[in-house]
């Protein structure tokens, strides 16, 4: 068992595209690290570089203390779970799991012991003699896990192992994988594009975009203190609302002007964002998470900042009400926003962004399920001014 580290690791293709750009990342021994990001961000490339399935163009990758650049996969002592499971169709479940051990000429008794134990952990005992084609998706996924577990490797590498399963099964498997990893304590690098998986499974999460590492931190930190607009918008669902705003100083205190609404910031908040003063009088991107918005009628204290808007759509989840509404303000239009909309496939948002600066912004709020608001009504929305996020318009960095 060992940690894995990337030191300025890069992947450059013949035509100059950098799929991975100088990645610096250290994964501790026994840690469950999730690499997350939209497709094309380089997360799978990074994983495959650890596996030895991708050449490392620049920099160094280490497993434990060993530099593994140039080592073939078979010499790296890592196990991998593939998105398509990649089970050997001509072998039974038992032989699939035992395959790597047979190659390494592990004694038969030892093979039997290890396979039986893996089968027990994964509930595969009744299926050992069957062939992959007669198994369900969930069973196949477990066989793929079994194949990895039985190796007792220095690291587990998982490439979107749950994306081919249906939603309910995915939730179940998430918990199973997390438990197994915790029990075995093997360093794990887990790649996914689903930020819910990332948040629920990882000890730490590394957000990537276009080959570059954006931020690596534990899930709570990532959620509460995103380092830039991309991370802020990527983590959390529904996504953070991004608005075009201005910072103004009045009577010694800071105010955020968004549309025709002024949101004053208290001293504690200002102390948390020392960089804000540099933006005095200038533009800034205001990020508001949906849970920081509430139906004003149910919000309590009557003198907090209020947004005035038009309710467009309500989605009743039972535990809360997702309210889509528009306000008289401009949405933030930056590359990050565009990319995030593309990644989610939000054509409507993309269309709006393409139209250019608009007078109304669409927001999503998590309102209490008791809200009486109906679609089409004019509404007042309470904003939790302590939970606002600020980003630089040009660099996207958090302020």
């Amino acid at each position, binding site marked *: 068992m060992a940690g894995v580290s990337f030191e300025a690791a890069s992947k450059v293709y013949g035509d100059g595209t950098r799929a991975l750009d100088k990645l610096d990342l250290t994964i501790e021994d026994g840690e469950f690290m999730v690499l997350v990001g939209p497709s094309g961000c380089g997360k799978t490339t990074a994983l*495959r570089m650890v596996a*030895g*399935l*991708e*050449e490392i163009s620049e920099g160094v990758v280490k497993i434990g203390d060993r530099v593994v650049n*140039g*080592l*073939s996969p078979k010499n790296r002592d890592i196990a991998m779970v593939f998105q398509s499971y990649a089970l050997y169709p001509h072998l039974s479940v038992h032989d699939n799991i035992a395959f790597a051990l047979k190659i390494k000429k592990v004694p038969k008794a030892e093979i039997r012991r290890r396979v039986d134990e893996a089968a027990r952990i994964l509930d595969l005992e009744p299926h050992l003699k069957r062939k992959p084609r007669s198994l369900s998706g969930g069973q196949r996924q477990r066989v793929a896990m079994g194949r990895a577990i039985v190796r007792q490797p220095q690291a587990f590498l998982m490439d979107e192992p749950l994306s081919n399963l249906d939603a309910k099964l995915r939730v179940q498997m998430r918990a199973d994988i997390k438990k197994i990893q915790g029990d075995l304590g093997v360093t794990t690098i887990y790649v996914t594009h689903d930020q819910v998986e990332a948040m629920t499974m990882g000890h730490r999460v590394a957000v990537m975009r276009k080959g570059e590492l954006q931020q690596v931190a534990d899930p709570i930190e990532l959620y509460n203190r995103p380092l830039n607009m991309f991370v802020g918008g990527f983590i959390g669902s529904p996504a953070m609302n991004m608005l075009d705003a201005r910072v103004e100083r009045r009577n010694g205190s800071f105010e955020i002007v968004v549309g025709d609404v002024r949101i004053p910031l208290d001293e504690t908040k200002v102390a948390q964002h020392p960089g804000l003063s540099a933006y005095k009088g200038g533009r800034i991107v205001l990020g508001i998470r949906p849970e920081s918005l509430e139906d004003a009628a149910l919000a309590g204290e009557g003198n907090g900042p209020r947004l005035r808007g038009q309710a467009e759509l309500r989605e009743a989840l039972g535990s809360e009400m997702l309210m889509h509404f528009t306000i008289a303000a401009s949405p933030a239009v930056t590359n990050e926003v565009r990319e995030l909309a593309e990644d989610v496939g939000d054509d409507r948002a993309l269309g709006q962004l393409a139209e250019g600066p608009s007078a109304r912004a669409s927001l999503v709020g998590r309102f209490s399920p008791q809200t009486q608001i109906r679609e089409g009504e004019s509404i007042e929305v309470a904003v939790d001014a302590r939970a606002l996020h600020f980003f630089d318009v040009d660099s996207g960095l958090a302020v």
Partner: protein
Amino acid sequence: MEATRTRGLRVPRGAPFVLPYLPFLIVFGIAPTIYALDLAFTNAGGGWVGFHNFVRAYDDFRFVPAFKHILIYTIVWLGALMVFVVGLALLLHGRATRVSATYRFLFYIPGALAGAAAVVIWLFMLDPTVSPGSFLLRHVLGASIFAQSIAPGNLPYIFAMIAFWTAAGGWIVVMYGALNTIPPDLEEAARIDGAGPFTIAFRLKLPLIRKWIAYMLILSFATGTQLFVEPEIVQHASFGLVPDTWSPNQLAYQQAFRYADFNVAAAIAVDLLLIGLLGAVLIVSRSGLFRAED
């Protein structure tokens, strides 16, 4: 990953697996082609003679007749393939798969007998004294003895029939398979739109298997122009009635082994090669084989 580095040595992935095949490809594929080209343009001593060999080959009194024979043969051969293979495949497609499979199997059996055995069988079939088709021989070919069956005028058609007999089954299976790749929804949609079986066959199915028909024609054109086995064996059985230089390939063979003139033989072989390539180019361009939409 592009390569596997083992102990510092970089071996391009997959290359060692192709290595044993390469000497065969070179010795029996590439080298003979180059050698044939070389022979065609040089003389017995190895000196360059330009197109001299080609001219000499052409001047031989048997050259033009041989190519005339092969031209008629190829037209009949390809025509029969196009019409009957595609037609039979269409007839078999779409209904009663059990029956269809039985017919396909029956059509396919002669394919096992390609070459000499097939020709010998047909020698019997062409002998009015023993053939089950003697009625046809007498009334279609006007033949009451073997020698009349193989009269020079009949030869291109006879050879085409023999070649068709052995090759059709295989191609019918291929065409049938090609027809099976057509999504059944298309046919249903056409039927709902009011198309009858003929319309569906000619305007829907046929254009969709265009690619396969082109492959069949290209391969058959090349093998057709290179006809050797059939005329050679019939010649052995005919007591000299059929000349031993009926087809261009036979002429090349005679030039090489009777007159020891390998250069002229090579010139004829190169002629046949070029014709094969030309045919392929023509068929490809006329059928739009490599059009992007497919």
